[in-house]
């Protein structure tokens, strides 16, 4: 097993952890952290896979920089929304779906 593959597999594992957390954690702060873990996993795959020739490739590094900027903006928006939700409902979690809205119970 060579180094790029180790990076890529670690990245894939982080992605899976992140997605699982994003879906299963109820607390919004944990969801936002899970999103960042997922993002780091993707960036690791992007940089790791591309250096197979042994020479670092600048293109994916530029892409990861762009990706980090996007992730920061998304995290900031998520935190602002979570804060507003906390102010208005007093809870850091999403309310359950309203009963009957997405169900066919007659």
């Amino acid at each position, binding site marked *: 097993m060579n180094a790029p593959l180790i990076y890529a597999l670690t990245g894939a594992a982080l992605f899976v952890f992140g997605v699982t957390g994003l879906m299963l954690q109820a607390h*919004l702060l944990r969801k936002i952290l899970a999103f960042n873990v997922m993002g780091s996993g993707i960036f690791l795959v*992007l940089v790791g896979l591309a250096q197979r020739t042994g020479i670092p490739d600048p293109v994916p590094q530029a*892409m990861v920089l762009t*990706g980090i900027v*996007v992730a920061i903006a*998304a995290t900031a928006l998520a935190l602002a*929304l979570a804060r507003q939700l906390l102010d208005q409902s007093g809870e850091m979690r*999403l309310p359950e779906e309203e009963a009957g809205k997405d169900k*066919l119970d007659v």
Partner: protein
Amino acid sequence: MFDPIPWLILSPLIWATLAFVQGPGRGGRLAVAGVALQLALAATLAQQIIAGGARVYAVGGWGAPLGIDLAADGLSAVMLLLTQAVALPLAFYARAYFAAHAAPLRYFWPLTGYLLAAMNALFLSADVFNIYVTLELLGLAAVGLVAVAGGAGPVSAAMRYLLATLLGSGAYLLGVALLYGVYGSVSLAALAPLIAADAPTAVSLAAALMLLGLMLKTALFPFHFWLPPAHGNAPAPVSALLSALVIKASFYLILRLWFDLFAPIASVTAAQFLGALGAGAVIWGSLLALRQTHLKMLVAYSTVAQVGYLFLIFPLATGAAAEVAASAWQGGALQAVAHGLAKAAMFAAAGAMIAATGRDEIAGLAGVATRLPLTLFTFVLAGMTIMGLPPSGGFSAKWLLLGAALASGQWWWIVVMLAGGLLSAAYVFKVLRQAFLPAEEAAHFKPLPRTLEWPAFLLALASLLLGLWASEMLNLLGAA
């Protein structure tokens, strides 16, 4: 020759920033002028494409692989035209809508501008990474718009939408990372000839991840959970923008990826699976629309159902004869445009009815037929496209899809389309029936400005006339 490509992205960026500085009043006027300019630009681009074929523009004079290329062909021109043609009446509508509300929404115009800039850039992108960036910009602007009115309902709907859209673009970006790892390129034009039927497993995995992410963003059944609360809780102009345009952007990408990039590895099984999800959306979305007690939620679930039709392209066009595939593809593209116009009209009309009656429940609509005849007529015309009655654009689209299903002998999709048509007639008539009841004694109707009714009517009329213009649109679609 004047090149409209960069200005289609710059114009909304400029007026959005000015609108942010100037506040909502002047911002609205700037937006109307800006979108009108963009409509002219998109029409110019469409003419250039019909005359001279697909266009490529190297941003800043730095072409790929060092810089970023923008590209436009028939499909992008159609989507660009649709975007500006829906946004212009909605800009007039939104000015009237927010003028009637006490607290003008400060961030509506800037966010709408950034949304349009992201969408135009997405339709003009020529590489999978640039597409990722525009997808994220689009998602963040759309989430901001859902939350623009504040309040616990919209904010939690926006949060749910944000998490779904971030998960979707995350899956997409992982697909991009795998593609780059295998081929060392992100350009659509460079990747397309490299991907062959014997591509490594990583490419199939990348395709699956990218398509899954985009399906989540398009709210294809069973990933539709975020759409009804987000589109139902937002102010009416925002719901119209989101339902008509934003989900079409990710659908456009699915079309591009499936037919341009991954065509050699697209299997009939995968296509049938996508079609099955689409059929599920048509049936489930229509049944739930029928069950709603609130007008905007009904219209939102109708979007879930109509998205399903779009995905019937894949089983009909994959592995079929060239003629059948072309008819399915054209039908799907026409459905995207017809639904965009009709759903914008429907949400705008719903918003006008809610503004006049002061109630969001369908039960509160009694008397609308006599007090708001134009708005109800708008709802009916838009409903005709949703149901697929002739001569609407929705009819031409469903006719082409039905033809493709007959020609390829896949009768089960015909059953789905007919059942969906009947169910959509049921939920449109559910609204009409209530609207034609006599008004209650205590009911109070607020008079509406004309600018709140006419833009929606024009959109509905356009969706109807699209059936007559279909050949011109298909002509532009075919220009490569």
